[in-house]
């Protein structure tokens, strides 16, 4: 205290100029508070990767499972040993299952979504904006268990009646995922189409293009990166979807040999198994490896979206 007084008495003006104002202190406080919130999110993401990866690699490091055999092995038999007394951990059936439902549902949903988006933006934009848009947004928000439940009570019995068999399987999963990602892809495609500036449309029509020519030759091409992003988003959602798929896919961990046979996906085996295995057992470790595969795939989808996002076919009037 005495020292400060002495200093003050030496040069009060210099002191008051050099001292931080309350306002500046508050500024520092606010800045560091908000920065620490941001850093917290970074730490969360980092620790999710760290924990899941370290847990997922245990099956390879601690239990000595051959990673190559794990990914390409076709027999999944984690509890009962085979004739040689070995447990079989081949995740290929689940990997194939996951990719099949994802690709098939995206393949079916994309044309539907693009047509609906074109209808909403290019053909009936009033109707699209006022009625379709809120409905699509509402459907994007429907919880995935509800899709699963509808799959279980409507889709599966329908398949059973028409094709025989149990009704559970890749086809049921594909149909549920198709309905689930349809609103997602549609809504993002609508955004992509709206991003195409109006003078593109005017130019095309002014040189005598028909509406279809305008859509096909101009609008769709200009919006391609955006539409691709929408599709990849839908695929990422389908790939990571757990409960809706788990409820209808049948959950038999065998190679899918038909769209109507019971099959399984990474997420379905994961949700089913994690509660039934004890922490630290081989059976549990391999489930974490499946989770790691999911994590890596989601990172991969993210990279694709980034890669597409950087491209654009739209030039904002270069004059």
């Amino acid at each position: 205290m005495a020292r400060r007084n002495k200093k003050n008495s030496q040069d009060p003006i210099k002191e008051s100029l050099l001292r931080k104002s309350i306002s500046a202190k508050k500024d520092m406080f606010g800045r560091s508070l908000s920065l620490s919130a941001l850093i917290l999110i970074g730490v969360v993401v980092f620790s999710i990767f760290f924990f899941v990866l370290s847990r997922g690699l245990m099956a390879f490091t601690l239990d000595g499972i051959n990673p190559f055999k794990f990914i390409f092995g076709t027999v999944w038999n984690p509890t009962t040993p085979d004739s040689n007394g070995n447990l079989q951990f081949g995740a290929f059936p689940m990997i194939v299952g996951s990719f099949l439902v994802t690709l098939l549902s995206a393949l079916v949903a994309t044309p539907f979504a693009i047509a609906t988006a074109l209808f909403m933006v290019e053909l009936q934009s009033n109707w699209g904006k006022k009625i379709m848009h809120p409905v699509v947004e509402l459907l994007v928000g429907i919880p995935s268990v509800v899709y699963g439940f509808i799959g279980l009570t409507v889709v599966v019995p329908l398949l059973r009646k028409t094709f025989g068999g149990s009704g559970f399987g890749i086809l049921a999963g594909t149909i549920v995922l198709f309905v689930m990602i349809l609103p997602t892809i549609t809504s993002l495609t609508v955004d992509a189409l709206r991003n195409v500036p109006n003078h593109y449309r005017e130019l095309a029509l002014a040189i005598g293009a028909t509406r279809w020519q305008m859509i096909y030759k101009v609008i769709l091409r200009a919006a391609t990166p955006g539409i691709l992003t929408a599709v990849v988003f839908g695929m990422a959602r389908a790939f990571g979807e757990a409960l809706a798929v788990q409820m209808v896919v049948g959950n038999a961990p065998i190679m899918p040999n038909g769209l109507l046979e019971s099959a399984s996906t990474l997420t379905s085996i994961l949700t089913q198994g994690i509660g039934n295995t004890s922490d630290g057992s081989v059976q549990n470790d391999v489930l974490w490896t499946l989770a790691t595969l999911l994590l890596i795939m989601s990172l991969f989808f993210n990279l694709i979206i980034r890669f597409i996002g950087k491209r654009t076919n739209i030039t904002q009037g270069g004059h």
Partner: protein
Amino acid sequence: MNTKVTNKIAIGIIYFISALVILILAALLISILGQGLPHVSWHFLISHSSSFESGGGISDQLFNSFYLLIVSMIISLPIALGSAIYLNEFADPKSEFIAVFRSAIEVLSSLPSVVVGLFGFLLFVLKFHMGFSVLSGAIALTFFNLPLLTRSIENSLAAIPNLQREAGLALGLSKWETTEKVIFPAAVPSIVTGVVLAAGRVFGEAAALLFTSGQSAPQLNWYNWNPLNSNSPLNLMRPAETLAVHIWKVNSEGTMPDAVEVSAGSSAVLIVMVFIFNLSARFFGNMLYKKMTSGTGK
């Protein structure tokens, strides 16, 4: 082929497919509500669930859904608000450091919710010995919620014109004071809209909660509001099965004789809730906007 004919055919196909999609989506909504609403009664909403007899309700699950939502919002809102403010107001847009955090948020938003749930299970339920509890579930929901909220708040802040910031700085306010007193209040209506929309998404989340808040709902005692009692609704350390988890569990376990009716009713309640969240998001946003700007709405 004549271009005009091609045009007619193509446009016709677009109309046809769109009609098909509208049909599918309408059928979806109708089948959810049509199957479920007949089972929704006052009794269904206010009675406890029963595992082995028919006639159980969803009161505990419904309460748990709301409770988890509120707890997770209390945790995630300040964090999301802080990071959004830093990203939009303080951060240098060209900085590599910030780009890393931006991509971290993007990655978090695209993670499958089951992986987020498993992480919560590993860290909170097992490592921190919190067990299947409201708190573990709320934290897992927070991870799921943070990227959604951060992005929507950041967009709300970015929509405030730069003139406002310049005006604040020209008055001699510091950056933080400008943000706190000028930018944030102006962004509140659209922030509220974003928060309520995110709440609707979180309300129906199940995969992240299966292994964090658990799949069992102890019967709550509605007269005991002491948060330390194990059957009190407010207890943070009790397991809490939510409505969405309930639908999944009832269908996959199959011990309940009226499983289909219960899950149909629960699905309808979920959809109606999501619907209410969506509508009220618009309503509250508009109301606040009118109140704060004394304007006539957007």
